């Protein structure tokens, strides 16, 4: 069958690595896939502010307080870049928020775990931001222009996030016994959820093939996960701490670390909304939104009034 003209142009651009821009024709499914992925990513940044924001007021030094505040504020900025990128595809921010609040849109499950101690701030930076970077760097070359450009800005800031987390753990690792235990406990709790951040294994990942063809995705979930495990297995030695996996072992033949079985049942439970903090996170977002309604109304009433002058 003959392809319609705009579709040929689109395919050709994808083929030649020319970015698709908002005004270009694109298949409806491409647009929908991007809206879903970008808004989900934006929501993750915003919901992701909560577990760490929880420790800003309790950060144990002024330097840490400033760093954490700057970090969480960066995540808000990332949310902003991504919402703007999604808006270029024809969806409004209010609608995206609505999808978040009603549970229609997802966000990264990792943020449904609680931050119990200060060491969790270290573990999140090192592992969660680390995994996010691994996922995000290839997205800087995603075929949709506004998304790729947002990711470039985001990735620039992410390496600082991972460094500050690693540094927190490094300090704790060199500290008192209580501090070392705190750090190890945080790693024990965050390790498995972090490697689940790469998504289900390739043989049960429904979107991978089409997204790879469209050059939204460049590597498979399992490829990125392996790369992450390999890096962390080395870095944890510098910390003088351990990853909670007895099967973690260097495999000379593969040139990679082997690692233990992931508990995908837990993953799907959290995705379905049964994680430790799903309810709390959504309620917090909803509350912030509702409590702010009068501010937004006032701002638009004011704009109308004064612009009329």
């Amino acid at each position: 069958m003959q392809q319609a003209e705009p579709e040929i142009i689109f395919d050709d651009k994808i083929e030649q690595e020319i970015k698709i821009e908002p005004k270009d024709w694109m298949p409806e499914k491409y647009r929908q896939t991007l809206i879903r992925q970008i808004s989900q990513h934006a929501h993750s940044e915003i919901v992701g502010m909560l577990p760490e924001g929880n420790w800003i007021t309790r950060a144990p030094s002024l330097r840490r307080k400033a760093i954490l505040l700057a970090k969480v504020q960066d995540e808000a900025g990332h949310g902003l870049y991504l919402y703007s990128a999604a808006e270029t595809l024809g969806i409004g921010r209010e609608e995206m928020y609505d999808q978040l609040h009603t549970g229609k849109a997802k966000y990264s499950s990792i943020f449904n775990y609680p931050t119990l101690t200060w060491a969790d701030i270290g573990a999140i930076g090192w592992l969660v931001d680390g995994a996010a970077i691994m996922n995000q760097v290839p997205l800087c070359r995603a075929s949709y222009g506004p998304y790729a450009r947002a990711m470039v800005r985001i990735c620039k800031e992410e390496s600082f996030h991972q460094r500050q987390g690693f540094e927190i753990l490094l300090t704790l690792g060199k500290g008192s016994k209580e501090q070392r235990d705190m750090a190890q406990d945080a790693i024990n709790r965050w390790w498995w959820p972090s490697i689940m951040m790469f998504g289900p294994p390739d043989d049960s990942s429904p979107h991978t093939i089409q997204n790879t063809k469209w050059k939204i995705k460049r590597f498979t979930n399992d490829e990125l996960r392996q790369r992450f495990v390999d890096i962390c297995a080395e870095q944890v030695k510098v910390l003088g701490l351990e990853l909670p996996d007895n099967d973690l072992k260097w495999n000379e033949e593969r040139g990679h670390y082997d690692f233990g079985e992931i508990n995908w049942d837990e993953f799907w439970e959290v995705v379905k909304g049964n994680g430790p903090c799903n309810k709390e996170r959504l309620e917090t977002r909803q509350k912030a939104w509702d409590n702010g309604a009068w501010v937004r109304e006032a701002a638009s009433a004011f704009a109308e009034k004064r612009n009329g002058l």
Partner: protein
Amino acid sequence: MESILDKIQLPGSHPAAGIIHYTLHLADNALVIAHRNSEWCGHGPILEQDIALANIALDLVGQARNFYQYAAALIAENNLSSITITEDDFAYLRAADEFKNFLLTEQSNGHWGTTILRQFLFSTYQYFLYRQLQHCSNEHLAAIAQKALKEVTYHVRWSSEWVIRLGDGTAESHQKMQDALNELWPFTDELLTGGLASAANISLDDTLIKTEWTEKITSVIADATLHLPTSRQYVYGGTEGKHTPHLTAMLKDMQYLQRTYPGVEW
């Protein structure tokens, strides 16, 4: 509760006492209001404004650190402690009655409008204060003030725009802002009574600060279609360590880790 001040020998008669106390007062103001603002992070009504307030909090933490570091340097220079005192000791190892911040800065966040208004009342004061402080005889304080002035200029602009927007927004927002103004007004005169600077031999024109502050507040409040409270019932005491329960609660949260695990690196 253990206090770092027990490890510092600073009699009131010591020539450096005045300047150390004044520097701590400047630091405490910045830290306490920064901390309050940071409580909003992730909970603001509009993403862009959440970011803006976090930015202001960051600026103020930065100012606080500069002042605390200078106070710590003064302790070292004058051999007032046998141990090395750091910026964190002042923030994390003093009790509420040892903090010298104005009562306004410690008031709880209330709704978004209360927070914005608290920032506006305080930043306007800080702006006119720093404008003089940047030329004062103490070159360290002058340098910190000069550097911070650009930030504070923005804080005043941002907060005053929002006071006007919310004051003259909807009937609901107008009422909320008027209530917030009535609630915070009793804490404003403490900003204008000076006191600690002269004991530090820093000569400021307090009357000028008061005139400039009043002028700016009056004009923004009028533009916001709000009414300045006529009450002259003011509350004082922050600079002498007589605080409202809000500060105790805030410090309990802020100092939690340092108090639970004393003497370790973070």
